[in-house]
């Protein structure tokens, strides 16, 4: 009989192996597989960020598409208007989203609870409608990256030589690795943050605001920090997504369904307020999408129903159920007490 901690060690070993396998996908896998996994990884990054907001900071945002969209548009601006290489332009996307999050936070943080959700949604609509007025980037109809931009991207020629593939396949591999890196960094950063003093404060706020305040936690400052940081991560992800998509339009970049609705379902199904939840959720999402691909929008109905059932009967999602049944914890957030207890 394995103890819970040795089971956890084993599952950590498996996680490391999975990560290694993912790194080698562009070397051994097909291009379609690389592109599919790229979408999965970017959705995972969005879900990790949203989980941080809604699951840990209690900020239920329905306006994350604002940051995906502005990240994408800033990246396009960098490449098309100022002639940047797409890679630094991704960073520009993240920074732009971070700056956008400041006025949005100023407005929405005055609203509590459900008002906040509507406030973020309206904010995202305002950004979408304003960006549609940006004529240099195609206004309401949008624009494409100049032909060959991704093929000349920094690092693509080297990857091309290394793997012996076409330029477009090398560009896919590069964006894939960036997405993988972003996902891993987001996951680990979330873990480190939540284990830190600030993260502890955040969870204290979630459990009881008054009590947290009384021991010196400043809810507003901590929540604002999470909001701005997750905007940064979401903006980076948006920029990266649209390098791969190569075409941007206000409706696609600020799509509430693609960048917020799916992300919410992924997080809820996997387990909101748990760190591995989004990983589980994104796998379920991907499998559902593939299995029900031939039935039109049926997978959306199924997704919605699963989300409702999870919220009604298992609030911590699939991962929460798994942890409860097996005692396995990856990335545990609980701190061990100093006094050893018998187990």
């Amino acid at each position, binding site marked *: 009989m394995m103890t819970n901690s040795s089971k956890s060690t084993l599952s950590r070993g498996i996680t490391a192996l999975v990560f290694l396998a993912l790194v080698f996908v562009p070397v051994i896998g097909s291009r379609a597989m690389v592109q599919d996994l790229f979408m999965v990884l970017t959705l995972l990054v969005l879900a990790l960020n949203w989980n941080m907001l*809604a699951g840990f900071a*209690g900020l*239920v945002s*329905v306006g994350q598409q604002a940051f995906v969209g502005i990240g994408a548009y800033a990246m396009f601006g960098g490449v098309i208007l100022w002639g940047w290489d797409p890679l630094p332009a991704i960073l520009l996307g993240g920074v732009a989203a971070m700056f956008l999050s400041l006025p949005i936070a100023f*407005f929405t943080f*005055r*609203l*509590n*609870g*459900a*008002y906040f*959700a*509507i*406030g973020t*949604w*309206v*904010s995202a*609509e*305002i950004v979408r*409608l*304003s960006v*549609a*007025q940006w004529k240099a980037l195609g206004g*309401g109809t949008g624009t494409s990256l100049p032909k060959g931009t991704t093929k000349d991207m920094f690092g693509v020629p080297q990857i091309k030589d290394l793997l012996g593939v076409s330029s477009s396949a090398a560009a896919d591999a590069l964006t894939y690795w960036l997405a993988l890196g972003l996902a891993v960094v987001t996951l680990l950063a979330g873990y480190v943050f939540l284990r830190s003093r600030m993260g502890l404060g955040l969870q204290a706020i979630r459990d009881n605001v008054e009590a947290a305040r009384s021991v010196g936690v400043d809810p507003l400052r901590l929540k604002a920090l999470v909001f701005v940081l997750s905007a940064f991560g979401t903006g980076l992800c948006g920029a990266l997504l649209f390098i791969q998509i190569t075409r941007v339009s206000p409706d696609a970049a600020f799509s*509430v369904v693609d960048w917020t*609705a799916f992300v*919410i*379902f992924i997080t*809820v199904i996997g387990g*909101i307020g748990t760190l591995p939840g989004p990983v589980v959720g994104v796998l379920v999402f991907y499998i559902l999408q593939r299995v029900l691909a031939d039935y*039109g*929008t*049926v997978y*959306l*109905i199924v*997704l*919605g*129903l699963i*989300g*409702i059932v999870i*919220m*009604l009967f298992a*609030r911590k999602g699939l991962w929460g159920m798994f942890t409860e049944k097996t005692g396995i914890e990856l990335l545990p957030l609980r701190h061990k007490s100093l006094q050893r207890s018998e187990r």
Partner: protein
Amino acid sequence: MIWVDTIVQGILLGGLYALFAAGLSLVFGIMRLVNLAHGDLIVLAAFLILTVVNLLGLNPFVAALIAAPVMFAVGWLLQSYVLNRVLGDDILPPLLVTFGLSVVIQNGLLESFSADSQKLSAGPIEAASLPLGPITVGVMPLLTLISAVVVIFALNQLFYRTKLGQAFRATSDDAVTAGLMGIRPRNVFAIATGIAMVVATIAALYLGIRANFDPSIGPARLIYAFEAVIIGGLGSLWGTLAGGILIGVAQALGAAVNPEWQILAGHIAFVIVLLIRPRGLFPRAND
């Protein structure tokens, strides 16, 4: 004179938004439930009216009379079997459940009615207009605004003059104490949502007659409704009407300057009001 005309058209448009928002405001005021599926439920009601019209060959106004009790039942069942389970201090579960519901309804309608635009036909009244002093107003928009005022007046009467309204207010103030007085909050909530769905049916009637609709338009309508409710202030039905009219006027003024700015102007008015008054214009409740 153009400005007067624009503002009047805006007020009339606001009547439609207030009608979308009235049911939402009722539910929000009584149980603090933010129903993200409200817009899709309105669209569902519109398709229900359309089905009755097509099957029985009735005028949409008559068909709505048949659709209304069905929608009441939908609301009652929804509240009793789903939404009552997620009410509580945590706002996340109700938001997520109604969000899921919104996606399910939208795509369910898409599967059964296709993405084609539909319209309810009410005959010559659609194009009729009335000269009102120096300006002309359409009969349908005017009827919409009058209906909004009547609906809100009726809901207020219900709220403040009847036994049921007393139960609504008591439950809204303190559900536990109301329970001790022999009121069953879950039952009260179910009736409230049922009534909200009747109001949604009326909104659907005007939505369907005045413009094309398809399964996907729910959320776009919902956002104006929410803006109206929030600007108006939690729990104030007349506030919701004022909020709807404010959004309508802002949109009409924006559109008069540049047609592309119509929607944007409405959203910006929403932001400005909340920056000045975070709790809305006429807040009744204390949260």
